[in-house]
């Protein structure tokens, strides 16, 4: 469904991605592991058209994403949950969700249904629906960022370090949501530093180092043989 074929990307003059090739099939959860600064986030940004792509091709359901305007990706079924969460801080929780709900073609009934769905995932968001996004705790902001992506009814979610800096209870809740989305058939490209969580949630894992994919294996293989993990991640 989502195919990165030999993608190069630059930030200014520095060459950040060197021929990254990744594939995510429909409904599949794929992990992207690696240390800080190896290009995981940039890979997601390249898909979102935010990093300057200088080589290779990115296609989604066979369609080249080159030339698709940045605001056109959501309509194709690609949602992004950025590492910094990027909640609209001065908008209320409900207004944050409305940025994804108020798109053309969503009937009021479906709108209500989607709201109920994300409120069922994250009951705290319903409680806080009239509170400004900026006043939420880190964990709540992460939930809102995921909920905001879910209301877009995406085919794939690019999930960037969703558990970073969260307390264990929150991490467990996020993990549960990833499973729930997977059961619903939403594909997820999960960027993480949390190895156990990634191996648990993802079917296949790519390991990146210095802007390139160094290793690709199923989670089962990686669980059985932890040497690769030690080698690239030092854990």
């Amino acid at each position, binding site marked *: 469904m989502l195919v990165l074929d030999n993608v190069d990307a630059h930030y200014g003059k520095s060459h950040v991605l060197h021929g990254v090739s990744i594939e995510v099939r429909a409904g599949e959860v794929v992990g992207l592991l690696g240390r800080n600064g190896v290009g995981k986030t940039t890979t997601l940004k390249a898909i*979102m058209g*935010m990093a300057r792509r200088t080589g290779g091709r990115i296609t989604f359901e066979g369609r080249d994403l080159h030339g698709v*305007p*940045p*605001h*056109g*990706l*959501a*309509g194709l079924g690609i*949602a*992004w949950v*950025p590492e910094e969460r*990027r909640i*609209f*801080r*001065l*908008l209320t929780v409900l*207004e*944050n969700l*409305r*940025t*994804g709900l*108020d*798109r053309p073609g969503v009937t009021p009934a479906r709108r209500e249904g989607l709201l109920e769905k994300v409120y069922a995932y994250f009951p705290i968001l319903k409680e806080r629906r009239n509170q400004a996004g900026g006043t939420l705790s880190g964990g709540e902001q992460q939930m809102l960022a995921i909920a*905001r992506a879910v209301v*877009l009814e995406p085919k794939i979610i690019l999930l960037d370090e969703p558990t970073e800096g969260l307390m264990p209870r929150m991490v467990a809740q996020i993990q549960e949501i990833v499973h729930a989305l997977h059961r619903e058939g939403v594909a997820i490209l999960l960027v993480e530093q949390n190895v156990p969580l990634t191996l648990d949630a993802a079917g296949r894992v790519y390991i990146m180092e210095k802007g390139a994919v160094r290793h690709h294996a199923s989670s089962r293989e990686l669980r059985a043989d932890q040497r690769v993990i030690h080698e690239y991640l030092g854990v």
Partner: protein
Amino acid sequence: MDQIIIQTLHGLVNGMVLAMVASGLTLIFGIMDIVNFAHGDLLMLGAFVGASVLGVTGNYWLALLVAAVVIAVLGAALQVTTLRPLIGRDPLTTILATFGVSLVLQKYALWQWGPSVRQISEPVHGDFTLFHLQYPWYRIVTAILAALIIGGLWLFLKYGKYGIWIRATTQDRVMAQAMGIPVPLVYTAVFAIGSAMAAASGVLFGPFAGVTQTMGFDFTLRAFIVVVVGGMGNLGGSILASIFVSLLEAYAAIVVSPAQAVIVSFIVLVLTMLFRPTGLFVPTPK
């Protein structure tokens, strides 16, 4: 005492008109980081269009509406042709571009309507007596209308679907795009809204002092001052600052001549830049 009451009224009325001009400017600045030096000239052009429509139809309210719509379309066209290609470039280029647009609009008005002052006759006549002094009803109507229009804008931004798009884009353009909000369209729409508000202010203000092709610069300057004093891009701050500065000017006019009273707003600007460059009417950052 009488004078203070009259000047308070004056200050409030002028403040509301200025607030309307400034809210368009601050909305555009907030979302696009563009200081639009042609803002006052869109006001001037709106006043001329209004005067022309009034001349033909004799209906002031129709003139107000037509001016707002015509200038909204012009504003949208300006944004698409002149400013959209400059997005992401050095801010200086957009300043120069809007300055150029300002000159073009002024010269166009001179060519189209000539150098003489056009009058817009007020739609509401009559005065009322306040402590032995006469005060025209029209000024009160103007202030109320301006307040209603600003209130309408606020409601639209707060509750409207597109209002939420505008606020989301103002806060985080990249994330707004990722949520599927058509940001280039939002930019154009905001520019059109700001232009329409400027044009409406021009028609409202027209009866006070007449319409000339150079009236715009004064408004750009004053609106710019209150936008800075109120905190760049902060709508509520701009409105408060408009009233604050206008009141100060009105009170100063009791002591010195009205022409000298304008200096007060520059003093406020300089003091704000020196001691609170983020703006007077914004919460202190924590």
